[in-house]
């Protein structure tokens, strides 16, 4: 092999590497900036919203947990001049939780649809989250909760276990919604903080 043909091959390989790197980056959807204040609710009354609030608090990020948040609350907050900028909705359901709140999955789906509609009107960032692992992906009510929120949000937030079968990545790709996957639940706080500070 001559020196010139070897250099040519290396140059082609470098070009290919650059091409794939650039191509790869262009395929990755940019993560949006998160603005404060944050309100977090749950579609299905699992403790997801509670867990989100606690791990964010540990990272120094405050959020307002309202498990039964309504569109009216969002309207009133906006009217008072202290409207929320970011809405986080955790998905996955709890029969005990819904029992505790005196609601069922149909009530939850309707409530969340109204909340998301109002959030859209106010230009809020909507984060659809699944942060309690496969234990919250077992039945029809879990599926309804996820279907209501995830395909219609601006950012998907998942822990690795929730996305172990690539389900949320698939939605992200088909709906062109950026996805933020973190290793474990305690990585959520720092990740949210980074998106606030970016």
């Amino acid at each position, binding site marked *: 092999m001559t020196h010139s043909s070897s250099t040519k091959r290396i140059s082609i390989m470098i070009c290919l590497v650059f091409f794939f790197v650039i191509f790869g980056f262009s395929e990755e959807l940019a993560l949006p900036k998160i603005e404060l204040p944050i309100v977090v609710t749950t579609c299905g009354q699992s*403790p997801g919203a*509670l*867990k989100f609030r606690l*791990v964010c608090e540990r990272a120094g990020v405050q959020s307002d947990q309202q498990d039964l948040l309504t569109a009216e609350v969002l309207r009133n907050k906006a009217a008072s001049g202290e409207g929320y900028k970011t809405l986080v909705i955790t998905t996955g359901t709890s*029969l*005990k939780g819904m029992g505790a709140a005196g609601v069922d999955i149909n009530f939850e789906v309707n409530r969340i649809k109204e909340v998301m509609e109002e959030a859209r009107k106010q230009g809020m960032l909507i984060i659809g989250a699944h942060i*309690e692992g496969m*234990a919250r992906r077992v039945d029809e009510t879990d599926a309804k909760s996820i279907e209501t929120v995830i395909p219609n949000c601006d950012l998907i937030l998942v822990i690795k276990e929730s996305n172990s079968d690539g389900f949320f990545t698939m939605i992200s790709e088909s709906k062109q919604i950026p996805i933020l996957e973190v290793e474990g*639940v305690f990585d959520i706080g720092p990740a949210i903080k980074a998106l606030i500070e970016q």
Partner: protein
Amino acid sequence: MKEKGLATVKVIAICLSVVAMILAGAAFYSHRTYKEPVVASEYVTQVKKLSDYFPDLKGTVNDCNIYIFEGSEPGGTVLLIGGTHPEEPGANLTAELIVENLRVKKGKVIVAIRANRSASTVTRPGDAYPQFYHIETPWGVKKFRMGDRWSNPLDSWPDPEVYVHYPSRQMLAYMDIRNFNRTWPGRKNGTITEKTNYAFMQLIEKEKVDLFIDLHEAELEYPVISTIVSHQRGVDIAAMTSMILSSTEFNIGMEYSPKELHGLSHREVGDHSRAISLLYEAPEPFLDRVRGITDERLLLTGKDPFVMKAGEFGLLYENIDENGWPIDVRVGRHASTFLTTLEMWSEFHPDLPIVIEGIPRYNDVIANGVGYYFKDPSAAPENRVFYE
């Protein structure tokens, strides 16, 4: 058949029935009167009886031991109970492991190993429950009473047509008037089960209990499994405990206690006392309706091909494989959950810390086996041996 021959058959049948009754009666008697020795930790402060808090229980089957451990420094008070449902052995074994090994540095820990002792004096022969189970220890085999979900009908009979819970007046299944986790907060002049709940509520008030923990096991077909159920005043502690354990040791969820479901400890203790109430659930395949051979092996190994098959069809709320859910895993889960709960309690309530030592975590219990932590009653000082 001639009349003489018929009479002979009847006499033989009666004789066989009498023999069967005598044998069964002897078995029931030996089970009901079997005493489990407990070697309390050398750091136990005092051992009371439940009747010390409600004298009506004195001399009854449910006058159980109350083990109290006080630290050298003040702090909060936690009450942990095992044996609510004695067909869930992971609960009373964990409570006993704690009683035999605990040392409290700050605060106070109170433990009842057999909270509803009556339910531990009866099993379910119709469901082929074993009467006893045995745990290997370094000094020999330790024998325990298997029990039932409900108090013994010998202690509480007859059941009503419909059980009306006190004080909510919610109507529950008739037999649940003997279910110690459907009769909270109890009743002073009620059944033996209700009186026992009432006695524990008196204990909670008199000992100024801050945190109440009720240990359980559940079938894999039941959605509330591998989880902590929390009264609304304890959700931050329960959620943090769940997240920390799921990140470091094993997956465990967290559920809110329904406000309209009455009689359960996670609801009523929190509603009717100053204490925050939590309930832990660990998986026990022995309780699944689809189980196969029901015996001591299944109780202790948690291995069952029929439950596994149900899992393959997606009918379960917890995973199971050929390793089953051995008793060491179930006790280890409860032990680590208890330890992490106390760590979280102390973090959220720095003015009322509860700091303890001597209790093994999940991996330790699995590595050594739960029996490793039980002391030999024949080698222990008499004043530290108690009977359940």
